[in-house]
């Protein structure tokens, strides 16, 4: 104690954790006595230690829904008891919000790495050192694959298709090491269920499991399946740019950057070899490619040259260099004030177009997390609809299109908790919008050429600008 004092520290200092004493306890745990379950976890953990030799990468996968039920488990090596998830539940409880559950949780004998998507936790169990991003990236790939297979990735869908899910997982990992993660290959190995196929299968007794070799896996272009045939050959490219921005109180831009992607939907017969060139490729500052793109060609000529996968894929994602000033297409005028004396606050926001290059701004939605002191809001929008959830304090206003002649606005009052002091900060406004036929960076595709096949494909390019993480501080 004296020593602690002598170093000039208040005893039991605890490194500044002072503010967390009032932590909320979330949902009563449905797994009964927490202490008991931990105990159980310990025992099995110890058991598994006995059989612990070396092991590889991903050991097991658990899928956990938002109410904390494990609804699917898959093991690639010896079975790891479910009870290992108790450590996860513990961390989940501590985190209070799903978003805050740490992606890496150490337990005495395992490490739990998780991703949270579509309200499902995908928890991978590993035993030894492994690059955490390796596991996380793989888990995301699993989710993407499910989405690709079933359209949506949700608990009921996964439960309905549990056999396909299992077959897919079996192919994706061997002994915990990724084997086939390319969706083109997987779909050749295990055909995704469609209503038609289910009907056909029940009549003819054929199966979802492909009996042919996934030739792609063995070829130089592992991402493309062979023997592709279409009657209409078409290739569509969507250039989608998102603006990430933080706008401060006075309306000046604190930070703004453009992140773009080119998503492609290519349905071409045979083995087409495509090249895509830009009018102004220097705009692209930092790019990442689908494995099909030839990097050298890009380095030297700034041309995208590739043999595309079949179907939908993301060809490229890019970042527009920070030197270029980013045109901010919308502005928000706001007047949000709380008064100390009264229990009413004023609320007024107006959204208007700024630099839109003559295009219409559509799909505008405004959301804002109001301070806890706000009890309710009575607002009138000049257009669109608005909702305020008094529990989560989330205000959302679906504006729709912005008409420059008549700017949409939302006005009204907020009723505050009586007696409580006024909130000392104003809420942040998050904006969503879409602008069709415009790439805000000015990026333009020059031409698309095809080699290696004789026919003439139909080509289409679409541009779109969206709000990414677009925040206005008030």
């Amino acid at each position, binding site marked *: 104690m004296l020593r602690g004092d002598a170093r*000039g520290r208040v*005893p039991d200092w605890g490194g500044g954790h002072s503010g967390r004493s009032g932590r909320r306890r979330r949902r009563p745990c449905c797994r009964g006595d927490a202490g008991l379950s931990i105990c159980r976890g310990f025992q099995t953990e110890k058991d598994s230690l006995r059989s612990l030799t070396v092991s590889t990468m991903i050991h097991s996968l658990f899928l956990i829904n938002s109410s904390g039920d494990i609804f699917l488990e898959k093991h690639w090596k010896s079975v790891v008891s479910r009870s290992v998830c108790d450590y996860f539940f513990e961390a989940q409880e501590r985190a209070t919000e799903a978003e805050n559950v740490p992606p890496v949780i150490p337990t005495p004998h395992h490490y739990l790495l998780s991703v949270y998507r579509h309200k499902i936790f995908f928890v991978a169990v590993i035993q030894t050192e492994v690059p955490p991003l390796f596991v996380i990236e793989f888990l995301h790939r699993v989710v993407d694959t499910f989405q690709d297979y079933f359209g949506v990735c949700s608990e009921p869908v996964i439960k309905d298709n549990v056999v396909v899910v299992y077959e897919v997982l079996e192919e994706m990992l061997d002994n915990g090491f990724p084997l086939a993660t390319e969706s083109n290959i997987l779909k050749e190995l295990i055909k995704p269920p469609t209503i038609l196929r289910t009907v056909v299968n029940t009549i003819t007794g054929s199966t979802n499991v492909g009996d042919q070799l996934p030739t792609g896996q*063995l070829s130089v272009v592992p991402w493309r399946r062979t023997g592709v045939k279409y009657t209409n050959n078409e290739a569509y490219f969507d250039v989608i740019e998102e603006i990430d921005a933080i706008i401060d109180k006075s309306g000046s831009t604190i930070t703004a950057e453009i992140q773009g992607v080119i998503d492609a939907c290519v349905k071409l017969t045979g083995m087409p070899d495509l090249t895509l060139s830009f009018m102004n490729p220097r705009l692209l500052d*930092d790019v990442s*490619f689908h494995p099909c793109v030839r990097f050298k060609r890009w380095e030297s000529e700034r041309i995208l040259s590739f043999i595309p996968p079949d179907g939908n894929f993301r060809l490229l994602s890019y970042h527009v260099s920070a030197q270029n000033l980013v045109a901010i297409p919308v502005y928000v005028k706001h007047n949000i004030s709380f008064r100390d004396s009264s229990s009413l606050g004023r609320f007024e926001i107006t959204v208007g177009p700024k630099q839109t290059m003559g295009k219409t701004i559509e799909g505008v939605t405004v959301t804002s997390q109001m301070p806890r002191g706000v009890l309710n809001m009575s607002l009138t929008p000049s257009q669109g609809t608005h909702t305020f959830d008094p529990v989560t304090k989330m205000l959302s206003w679906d504006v729709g299109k912005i008409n420059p002649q008549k700017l949409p606005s939302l006005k009204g009052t907020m009723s505050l908790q009586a007696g409580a002091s006024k909130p000392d900060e104003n809420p942040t406004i998050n904006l969503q919008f879409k602008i069709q036929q415009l790439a805000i960076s000015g990026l333009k595709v020059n031409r698309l050429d095809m080699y290696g096949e004789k026919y003439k494909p139909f080509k289409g390019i679409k541009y779109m600008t969206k709000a990414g993480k677009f925040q206005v501080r008030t």
Partner: protein
Amino acid sequence: MSSNSFAYNEQSGGGEATELGQEATSTISPSGAFGLFSSDMKKNEDLKQMLESNKDSAKLDAMKRIVGMIAKGKNASELFPAVVKNVASKNIEIKKLVYVYLVRYAEEQQDLALLSISTFQRALKDPNQLIRASALRVLSSIRVPIIVPIMMLAIKEASADLSPYVRKNAAHAIQKLYSLDPEQKEMLIEIIEKLLKDKSTLVAGSVVMAFEEVCPDRIDLIHKNYRKLCNLLVDVEEWGQVVIIHMLTRYARTQFVSPWRQGDVLEDNEKDFYDSDEEQKEKADKRKRPYAMDPDHRLLIRNTKPLLQSRNAAVVMAVAQLYWHIAPKSEAGIISKSLVRLLRSSREVQYIVLQNIATMSIQRKGMFEPYLKSFYVRSTDATMIKILKLEILTNLANEANISTLLREFQTYVKSQDKQFAAATIQTIGRCATSITEVSDTCLNGLVCLLSNRDEIVVAESVVVIKKLLQMQPMQHGEIIKHMAKLLDSITVPVARASILWLIGENCERVPKIAPDVLRKTAKSFTSEDDLVKLQILNLGAKLYLTNSKQTKLLTQYILNLGKYDQNYDIRDRTRFIRQLIVPNEKSGALSKYAKKIFLAQKPAPLLESPFKDRDHFQLGTLSHTLNTKATGYLELSNWPEVAPDPSVRNVEVIELAKEWTPAGKAKKENPDKKFYSESEEEEDSSESSSDSESESGSESGEDEEDDRSGDSAEDSGESGSEPEAGKGRAATRSRARGRGDSKDVDKEKENSKTSESSSGESSSIEESSSDSESESESEINLVSTPVALPTPALSPSLIADLEGLNLSATSSVISVSTPVFVPGKTHVLLHRMSGKGLAAHYFFPRQPCIFGDKMVSVQITLNNTTDQKIENIHVGGKKLPMGMQMHVFNPIESLEPAGSITVSMGIDFCDSTQTASFQLCTKDDCFSVNIQPPVGELLLPVAMSEKDFKKEQGMLSGMNETSTTIIAAPQNFASSVILQKIVNVANVGVVPSGQDNIHRFAAKTVHSGSLMLVTVELKEGSTAQLIINTEKTVIGSVLLRELKPVLSQG
């Protein structure tokens, strides 16, 4: 097994009852939670029936439901015998699901799992590479220690397979075998060594993974493959890239000298050295003798660069850590852009990447400074992300950007996320200490926060201000007074304690206020938190020593209160202080020094980044994320003082010329030893990617420049001549592949020859079925190369054609094939009446026996029909005729009432129908039982062509031929009927026949391997000729006798 499954049931029945109840709506378990156990039993019964039915659809349905059970974590282990029977199913989906089941439960039911092994062994020799690969996958996933030798042999063979896909699976299997039986390490290392030499991009990642797993310390295995791995890297699949890059990072740290100059190291230690890297380098250059980078070192750095553009975050991170750990510091800058890009992706990726950036930004601020704004916090970020961003912002703060940052921090302080607001306040404190110019501004800002409404913010501010004041106590009397006033309003204990401590420390500077504060707190002492009470005691003691006139009584009052406090810490402290400060006759020498003890100059606390000590972990690793050493973490070694001999990485010139260069270019390879590796690597890079551009010369060393420009000129010439530039890469590459392969074939031929001979030697020890057949099988594989050709244009139909070709080329070879039909007929071994309740049936599964290749496998099902446990069932004395042998099953410890268990045995009947008699014993009794094999079960089916059949038949004429005439109704001579009847009786294989009226069947005897050829020739009218040719005339005639009535019956 039984205890295991018991525990499992208990868990699923008890702990998860609620969950199961919720899931009950799903298709699989319509039952409620409580009826679960019994209804499960019943359901499993109908699953069993479905599995045993003849219809594939029913079986498939059952398997799907079973997989559903496994997915839910329910126990389906008791279905094992029923499921495992279907392992040889023709339906590929059933088969796959059975594999899923096997891999899950084989460990628990080792004995039964053995039944499936032979199916895989056969599949390992399938001409289809995917079937070979999947057989190896499942075989190696069955964690049954008995089959280790079989696995070993399979891996050995697969590692020499012509298909890279099979070799890839072999590499995976190495790790599985190693975890099953670490004793095999030496043998496995040999295989790894062999596979490391593999040139296929498909194999590279997997074998390096195996290397990391089995023998990460055998760095010597990498030398010869280093350059190849570097060159292949771009084309390896993304997961393999991660593993290879991590391995090569470790390799480089042991093999090359540090590219960081002494000055750089200094920079690391010097905190306030903000010169840019370039300047630093110039200075260092002047000081040091020039440093020349090993060309191999350069090769690695250059070849990984394109991977920074990967879409896979793990790959980008792997490259980033490679640059961080082994590239010259001036070059590491390029990774920051890519890392910042990753911040766009999911929360989890952000979390890991930010952690790594935090560590990097402590050491080299310059790298991330241009991206400062990318780390600005958004209100929608998760708290953990916010705090990590804040950490990085703090690390990046300097005189130039601090004012912007402080403005940004002001917004954060007001955040609704209070945890984040508190972290921001600490951050401001850290900035104040590290950048002295702004410390006053920060302090003022923090003081302003003291009037904030939110208590948490105020408390955190107090704590931070306390730390700041401690560093420069002189000038801040005003602030202390302000804080003393706060004591009235603030309630958070830590903050109150901090204020009290601060006043105590500075009591001589605020002589008027301090006693007053003590007076107030004395009043509220009893209601204070323990933390605050201790500080009140401290304050009292300090004041007593400095200002005893005013505070003597107050302090004594407080000490009295403390004496009777409930907390013993406080009582202890009270006693201690009283002894020390209140002079009495007993007090020792210490009280003289009381003032020195209490009012000593205390060193200021250091406000440090929590990421400060993380840099000793390799970046991008789990250990780095957790900041503790994870199991299996491999330490990154320090640079060696002197580089080990670089020539170990040289590959022999001859081999190289053969591997990499078409004849025309070979002469370039040979010149001047000094440039040798340079030119080779040049050659490699242009060769492996076959892309006709020069490297962007900017990052390459000066001395390479000449060499390079010459090369690129040549290359661009090439590209000019290519009419369709777009086509270039793929075309050339596949050409290169083609070349490589044709050479591979030769080499592989040698390889497989050697491996064959070695496996031949070892086969006798290993009890496996690698006899003459298996060798000739791999001959077939050799012929089937076209399947392995990785040309993308090869359509499946073409492959099928090729396969057809291959089959006809199998020629004059006897190979065991799968049984055409497995009759489900069981024979009674022991009736339950005579066995006192123990019943036993046997059945011939028609699988090659795993216990010995001359044995017939027999499957025995034991049933307990009593109402008591039967214990210790085993085979007692054996009465076997001369030469016969028997491999008994492992004793069964106990059999539950109404339980049943299936075990397998192997019996060598010496190609005779003599009875094998033995005793089946339980704990109390012994029962004599016999197994007499039907002659048809002494055979194994053989696949051969019609031509071979005729040839063999020709050699087995005369004495070796027996024949008879059969008369039956014409409908019995339909080919399907004949086929069905014959395979029902005898385990023979069907020989494709060119004539409609002749049916041919071939088999060999299990013991001696003599051929047994059966011909049914349909004649005019309702007669047929049945002919059997075999050396074993006795068996031949017995078989003839058995077949005749079967065929003639209606």
